[in-house]
């Protein structure tokens, strides 16, 4: 069976959930080979990257020690992937990357290098007679599009929550790859980095539940955060809340922020403008709390409460907490 390359999404060797989703999808298409670009000592040993991805069916793990390229932007990673893809005989059956800002850039460069078609933000990937078929949700979720790559190796970025990760034992054969990185790829680099304070909450784009607040919070996100914590959810915000300076931009859900597709989306004090819908319309279940019964968000919801979030949310939080005990 042909190899399917999966770029491992990780932070300092801690593998993130979208990686398991991609490995699960990769098994539908061929033999998953995971690609780890990071510190070599994080790959091996108990709890290391290799052991972790093996559990989700990685037959092979390419390890690219990033000592030479750490701190540079995406170009070296694209070169590394292109070299690995070039090693794999007739070329891999597909290259899967988790969808985020950085990987889309890697994928864009890779597509030109490999002269291969690129599909971004797939929400489903299937093996078909004529090759790999992807499903995307476009125009703010108003259309579902199926597409195929017609040239070269299909390069596909897949949105988080597109598959339920399934464990499967893989051989996890390690292959260390020495990649040659061009000088041109090393001309832009990170000169300072200020890690974001950990909130202890799940990451916005990966969370199963998202609780968001908008203009209606009046700047007080406490009821949003308390409900989020009761539900084990991530916190999101509308553009109005971000533009008012109430929440950082990294919390923004919508066209110019994050696109989320959780099992449950709870919109509070958010009117539901098209820009916001674009970022959350594909959520499985949508509920909203808003004082204005005319708010367009109510056109989308499975359940809506016309009321003041400052009284409804604390009461709901109490009920959620009570149901747990």
């Amino acid at each position, binding site marked *: 069976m042909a190899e399917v390359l999966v770029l491992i999404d990780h932070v300092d060797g801690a593998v993130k959930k979208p990686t398991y989703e991609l490995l699960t999808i990769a098994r539908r298409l061929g033999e998953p080979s995971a690609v780890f670009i990071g510190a070599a000592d994080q790959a091996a040993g108990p709890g290391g990257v290799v052991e972790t991805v093996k559990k989700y069916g990685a037959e092979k793990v390419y390890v690219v020690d990033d000592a030479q390229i750490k701190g540079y932007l995406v170009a070296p990673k694209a070169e590394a992937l292109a070299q690995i893809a070039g090693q794999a005989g007739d070329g891999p059956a597909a290259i899967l990357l988790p969808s985020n800002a950085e990987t889309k850039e890697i994928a864009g460069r890779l597509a030109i290098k490999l002269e291969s078609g690129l599909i971004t933000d797939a929400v489903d990937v299937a093996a078909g007679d004529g090759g790999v078929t992807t499903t995307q949700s476009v125009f703010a979720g108003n259309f579902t599009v199926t597409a195929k790559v017609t040239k070269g190796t299909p390069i596909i970025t897949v949105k988080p929550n597109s598959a339920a990760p399934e464990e499967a034992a893989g051989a996890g054969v390690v292959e260390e790859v020495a990649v040659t990185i061009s000088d041109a790829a090393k001309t832009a680099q990170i000169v300072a980095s200020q890690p974001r304070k950990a909130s202890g909450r799940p990451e916005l784009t990966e969370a199963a539940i998202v609780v968001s607040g908008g203009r209606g919070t009046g700047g007080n996100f406490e009821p949003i955060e308390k409900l989020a914590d009761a539900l084990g959810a991530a916190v999101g915000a509308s553009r109005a809340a971000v533009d008012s300076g109430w929440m950082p931009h990294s919390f923004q859900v919508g066209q110019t922020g994050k696109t989320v597709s959780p099992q449950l989306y709870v919109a509070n004090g958010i009117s539901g403008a098209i820009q916001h819908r674009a970022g959350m319309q594909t959520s499985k279940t949508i509920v909203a709390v808003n004082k204005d019964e005319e708010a367009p968000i109510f056109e989308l919801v499975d359940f809506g409460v016309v009321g003041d979030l400052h009284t409804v949310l604390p*009461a709901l939080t109490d009920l959620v907490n009570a149901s747990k005990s």
Partner: protein
Amino acid sequence: MQEGPLRPTTMNIVVLVKYVPDATGDRQFEEDLTVDRVNVDGLLSELDEYAVEQALQIKEKRGGDGGEEVQVTALTVGPQAAEAAVRKALQMGADKGVHVIDDAIAGSDAVATSLVLAKAIEKIGKFDLVIGGLAGTDSMMSVVPAMLAERLGLPQVTQASVVETQGDQVRIKRDGDVATEVIGATMPLVLSVTDQSGEARYPSFKGIMAAKKKPVETWSLADLGVDADQVGLSVAWTAVEEATARPPRTAGEIVKDEDGSGAKALAEFLASKKFI
């Protein structure tokens, strides 16, 4: 030796502007499954306005009295109507425009679009910065800057919320998911800016009048040395097989909160869906 007047160095900035279907309008696919870009109201992609703004801010900071001569060129690829995107950029303050228009381009994917852009930028001549917005508000593919940078053999520095330049150095700040980063790079390069980089200016009356006299060059693929069979729908490296309108969400139950009834009803709904 006689000293002549100091010759100002020249800096060239190319801003990518895109004409997109109005996101608040009714967007449709055509029969060939490409985006209908003709029968809908269009406008300069809102996200590209931030790119124009940053280009103009660099021009103002580095230009001015006795400063460098900074030239901002707005570049677009698209049908006749796309000229509106260039005009808007000129009204805001860009110096000249380039509109690549050719029937063969219709249906081009990001790969072909990046090829046309790369050739057009090479034809514009020496450049220091290519600035684009975050993503077209229609496709959200956001890979064109990366593909363009790859084709031009340049670094790309993306998602800048703050941009500073000095000499041939660029420093940007970006707010990533796990960290806020400062990135340094040497020009020439491809830069993309976010909607956090600074409110885009409205064209002034003077700007609107001045834009009428600014040059807009119109280039065909032949002018760029691109063959018609390198672009367009038929040679796209991806193919859309089917586009289905998502069925409208069936209206759910809406209740009015009275004395805590709202929270109770919502909790019952969440419990019925096994969220609590």
